[in-house]
């Protein structure tokens, strides 16, 4: 039981990371119908900025500022230079151009920050573990990650359902041309949302950097999972991204914990080892395929 609860917490922490990345990506798709495979690059840029800033100043706060600014600024530059020219192109063009951007970013980061991956310590006030339940100790850093995820989810809910910008975002996802015709500068709105998405990548990066390895290529790995999240959740909707992130995070964490046990009880060890390691890694893709087969547009697609 305690192990199960611990896995649920791990799943929640992973979900928080995925939600921070997926919410921006899905909004960008919802408004401008753009698939951005360079979204993971903003996360990587943020993580490198966070690690280097924290290492050189010793302050976690500096890390936060550097990550959010670095990722946001880089996102803004990419939007102005590349993404803006891709709105009216088909998805194939968007996929290829943004792959190009992410290849470029990988090299750029390795030139700017060097080949050896920087290391980021867990800040003192978030170090150590806390007793969540009798007998269950859980790292504070991971709990903080979950809390940040919840705060961002609430903040986005407020932004989207309670503010003027949010109203325009919803309207834009619903019917872009109509919003445009009503005299709203949809271009500016989009740039704003895109930059917000990149900022959230920075937030995700600064929380993830002390827990995961900061390295070249980290963006692509998490991006593919993020794509699974938004496709499962339904493209264009933040609610969908939340549901998708929770599902994918839980399937991944619980799969890692329990699939090897099931396989071990079902098959002889020489088969079960191979089978379980494949199944664990493939589980979220199996989830995505199943969801798409039952609901081709995802679980909670934006109305369109």
């Amino acid at each position, binding site marked *: 039981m305690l192990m199960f609860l611990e896995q649920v917490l791990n799943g929640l922490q992973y979900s928080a990371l995925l939600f921070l990345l997926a919410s921006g990506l899905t909004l960008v*798709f919802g408004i401008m119908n753009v*698939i951005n495979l360079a979204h993971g690059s903003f996360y990587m840029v943020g993580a490198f900025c966070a690690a280097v800033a924290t290492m050189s100043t010793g302050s976690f706060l500096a890390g936060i500022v550097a990550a959010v600014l670095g990722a946001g600024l880089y996102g803004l530059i990419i939007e102005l230079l*590349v993404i803006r*020219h*891709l709105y009216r*192109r*088909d*998805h*194939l*063009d968007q*996929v*290829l*151009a943004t*792959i*190009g*951007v*992410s*290849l*470029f*970013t*990988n*090299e*750029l980061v*390795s*030139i700017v920050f060097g080949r050896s991956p920087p290391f980021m310590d867990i800040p003192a006030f978030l170090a150590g573990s806390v007793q969540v339940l009798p007998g269950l100790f859980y790292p504070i850093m991971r709990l903080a990650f979950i809390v940040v995820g919840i705060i961002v989810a609430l903040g986005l809910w407020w932004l989207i359902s309670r503010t003027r910008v949010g109203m325009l975002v919803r309207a834009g996802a619903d019917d872009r041309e109509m919003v445009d015709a009503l005299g709203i500068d949809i271009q500016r709105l989009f740039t704003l949302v895109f930059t917000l998405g990149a900022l959230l990548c920075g937030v995700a990066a600064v929380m993830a950097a002390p827990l995961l390895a900061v390295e070249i290529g980290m963006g*692509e790995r998490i991006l*593919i999972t993020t*794509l*699974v999240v938004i*496709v499962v959740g339904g*493209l264009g909707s933040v609610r969908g991204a939340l549901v998708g992130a929770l599902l994918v995070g839980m399937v991944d964490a619980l799969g890692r914990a329990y699939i090897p046990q099931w396989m071990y009880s079902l098959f002889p060890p020489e088969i079960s*080892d*191979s*089978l*379980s*390691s*494949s*199944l664990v*890694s*493939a589980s979220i*893709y*199996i989830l*995505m*395929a199943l969801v*798409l*087969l039952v609901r*081709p*547009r*995802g679980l909670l697609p934006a109305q369109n």
Partner: protein
Amino acid sequence: MSQLLTRKNILHAIGLLLFVLVPTIADATSEPYIVNMITRLVIYAIAAVSLDLVLGYGALVSFGHSAFFGLGGYVIGIIGFHIANDGGLFGWEGSNAALVLWPIAMLACALLGLIIGFLSLRTSGVQFIFITLAFSQMLYFVLVGLMIYGGDDGMMIDQRNTFPGLDLTRDSTYYYFCLAVLVIWVYLCRRIVNSRFGLALRGLKQNQRRSVALGFGPMGYRLTAFVISAAGTGLAGVLWANYALFVSPDMASWGKSGELMAMVILGGLGTIFGPVVGASVFLGLEQVLTGLTEHWMLFLGPILVLVVLFGKRGLYGLLVGGKHHD
């Protein structure tokens, strides 16, 4: 027949002549590695041409074609592994004959294409891109998990398959063999896209509703194209396994799918010949840039972006000129 000497045909002839002359040039310049380099290129071209069938003519953006490339290679690798270690597979003593193994590998890829295509074609648009990606990622992780076949590291293959009357172990013979496969495959694909089937496929791409109203059901045509494309990409995987004598899960990675897509776009979508040009330029660029700098992606990335933004018709369109496109 007066149309024989069009700019297009002349370019094709020059291109083919260049390919045929590669071993001679390599001999003359005593740079034997050129043959290997161009063999790689020819193999990728076969995969890219196959991808163009669905990408260019069916408007089906498959982000998972590396699965077929990987599976084709692994069928050869796995059968070779069991022959070498256990003297056979499932009671079959095994064979090293290309004419036996290659159809098996292509059939396996066609079957996988049938399953993936059937399931994926229930979705469309963006979801199609990502569901094909999901299936190829599943295969990728299955290959990574196959510890007896080397897992993450992949495995070596003892020897090339045999073909009656040819000594495929000689690099130049193997090169000509791959080139012949490419030429035949390009010819077949041209026949396919200009047949009634190909026209129906293109009709569906242009206007699905009209095509359906005319009695062309989308599923049958698209699925057939997907299966043919899967088998062709699988053949490229087979040739790759025989060329490199090594297979690894990297063959089925999503980056490989991206590379193949880039080759098709670079050369020209929906042209069959274009992807050959695209593969040549892509791999040529890789060769030149890696020679110049360790950070070659720094240049490849922006080139990809520029090609997408400004080179809509692809290099083939530029070379051939005019309004030609099909």
